[in-house]
């Protein structure tokens, strides 16, 4: 339970720290032909490091408590410990750079569906109801990777309820996802996403505000060459 609280504080920290200007979230995934792979999720606040450094000197900002360095480190450590206990998840590592304010977690998964368990776990730890349906799947038989996200207007409604200062934070925030495969890609369905030169990777970039407002959707179906 203690660990859950710490993870909560860590994620709250991320939220609070991100209340300072632009930030980027990068989700990188390598999926092997057998459905196993690696994932790295990075939160980069480097562009706002001046403001973050100033905020770290405060006790609270905009009504949110500002955690200290030790609390953030402990939070990430607990998140790693929780991931290690998750079935199918291995080789968990973390990186926390307090000079540039970059945090990332990497891990291997035995099958793509394990990511749904990780997703569920995060929501459970955060004690929040996910807005919209989010899932990953990989069909062995026909080598189809599906990233599914069903948009819900709850995210937009929650955003609208934020104070205007807090809304500012999301205006320049970006989200990037890169899905890389062993085999060439036959096609991918998301019009906003791009196929790499080698035809083995798909990149999707969007402003987080567009995702909140439902203007863009991260869902995709990526068909590999059989």
């Amino acid at each position: 339970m203690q660990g859950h609280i710490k993870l909560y504080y860590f994620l709250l920290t991320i939220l609070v720290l991100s209340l300072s200007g632009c930030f980027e979230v990068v989700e990188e995934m390598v999926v092997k032909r057998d459905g196993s792979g690696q994932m790295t999720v990075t939160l980069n606040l480097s562009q706002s490091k001046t403001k973050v450094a100033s905020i770290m000197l405060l006790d609270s900002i905009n009504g949110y408590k500002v955690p200290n360095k030790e609390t953030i480190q402990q939070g990430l450590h607990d998140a790693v410990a929780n991931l290690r206990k998750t079935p199918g998840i291995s080789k968990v590592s973390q990186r926390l750079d307090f000079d540039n304010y970059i945090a990332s977690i990497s891990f291997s998964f035995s099958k793509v569906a394990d990511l749904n368990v990780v997703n569920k776990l995060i929501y459970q730890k955060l004690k929040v109801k996910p807005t919209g349906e989010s899932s990953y799947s990989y069909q062995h038989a026909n080598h189809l990777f599906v990233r599914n996200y069903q948009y819900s207007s709850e995210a937009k409604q929650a955003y609208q309820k934020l104070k205007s200062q807090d809304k500012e934070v999301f205006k320049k925030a970006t989200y990037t996802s890169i899905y890389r495969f062993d085999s060439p890609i036959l096609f991918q369905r998301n019009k906003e996403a791009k196929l790499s030169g080698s035809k083995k990777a798909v990149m999707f970039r969007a402003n987080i505000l567009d995702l909140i407002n439902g203007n863009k959707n991260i869902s995709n179906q990526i068909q590999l060459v059989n």
Partner: protein
Amino acid sequence: MHKFSLILLSIFLAFAAAAQQVENGVPENAYAVATVNSKYFFDLISISEFNQSKIGQALLEKVGKNNNIRYQSVEDFGIDLHGQVYIYSTKTDSIVYYGMCVPLNDAKKLDTLLRGLGTPLNTQNGLRRIELEDKKQIVTWNDKILHLFSGNLQDRFFENEQVAMKYGIKNRKLSDTYDTTVTSPEPPMTDTIDSYWNKADTVAESLDSTDVVMQEDEYNDYSSDHYTDSVNQDSIYDDYYASIAADDSIKSALLNKWLNNEVNRLSITKVTFENKSFKHAVNKKALASVWIRNVDELYNDFLSTVYSAVLGTKTNKFNAGFGSANAHLVVEGNHVKLSGALEVADDQVKRYHRIYNRKMNKKFFKYINEDALAYMGYKVNTQAYLEELPNLMKQYYGSLLGGFKEEIDLGATLFSLVLDEKAIGKVVKGDGVLILNGLKKQEVKYTTYEYDDDYNSIEVEKMKKETLPDFLWMFSSDDTKLMEKLLSIGLSKHAITEESGVYTFKNKKSPFDVHILLKDGIVFIGTSFESLVAVQQGKSKNNLSAKNKAVLKKNSMVLALNASKISKAVNTLDLSDSYGSKALKERLQNLGDFYFTSKGMDGNKMVAEFSGEFPSTHKNALKYILFLIENTAFGGM
């Protein structure tokens, strides 16, 4: 008359009164007196302008509505609009009185104005008297003066047992109720429990567990006891609240009686407040003034309960060595000046004079630019301050924490032993200036990602411009050896770099590099490397005005803000309107310089002053303030 009208009228009365009178109505034992010079008020805002203003219109309408009269001007109230209003407070150990004296020029008009309050009781000498509904306020007036009285009983007085007994006050507390229950003649609770245990043991010895049945009479005893208890509990609360209500009723009657006695006392004696300290403090140019007889007395009266809550001990022995205090508000054109003075006890005067005995290093002036957004200058004698601090601590806290007097004395002695005041006084003499030169765009590195053709991410460093404060702090030092040694250690540990005689402390976590320079007995610490190199090479060009030089020279503490420059600086920030920056810019752009200054000691007084320059868009500062109030209260002119 509606309470709101009374409040509105009181505010107005504070700015409207008869000319200088010998008889001002303030009793000799007043410990706090505020004066408002309505002549100056109506010199700054003419009566017709005030009548036309939204505040004036609201006042005329509200007062008129209560009397079914359509007032055209505040002159119709019967109040002399060219004199002095006095607001004062007197106190005894049992009650604090508040009074307001307003001179009149046409009492008949006031008779009409106040008829909504009720029928006045006419007493001798043409004095009319009305008790307001709650009997906690009394209004009296004759042909010359209107007097508003109110009072507050001192709770501490009634806590005294003999006093409470004399007036029939019970002072019951809920905890007393429980005490009564416990100390009632019934057997002590532990005995009861013990006897139950003994009884249970005896029964248990002779019965099986299945045989344990409560007898009917035992059950009845048990249930009736509990029922009675709950009834008792309700009646305990009822008794308690009834007792409180009875106490309140006695106190209200006493308040009314004493208030009436005070009104009678003052109505038969022609009172003129002629306290020497008050008369000495009078500033004839002030629009409003406040005078307090003794600040220590005020602390003891009003803060004793705060101290008792914080320190867990009741005290009325606060003795910081402060005497009378006064403050004056002066409006001259677009300038507003609020000045204050605090009298210091004779044995303390010398100490404070020693502390403030320091001259500002004139070399600082070369490095202060007139265009700076703000600066703060200070000059104290560090050595004298460190030497006097233990004595001041003894003075402040020794009297307050009587039980710890010896410990405080020991702490103060240790403090003196541990510190070498003279040596510290050489390293940091005590004079310095902190300048906010502006907000500077500065290149800042950040980390982001680029992607190759195959979308492999590559971590790259990029530069972006950020607006950061550019400040410079300088202070005098007669002995820079310690700092030189610290810088030398920093260099050897590679925590500091040196270039052109300027040391740079790079802290990855700090948004900006901090540069340090030691030159001509001054320690410079700033954010601009170029500025410090210019200082080192004697190429620093600044243009501090004679006015600002004088302000820095003659004051022990200065905080100067250049509002118009700050407004321009805010303009350069990339702030969205959601941060309220638009309103901030609008408010600031027309304002001039603001100074908060303190000369330290002036004779036996500690003095401080705030002065501000308001926009010339209005004829004088008072009109601008009225404009702001109307804008806020009535949503625009």
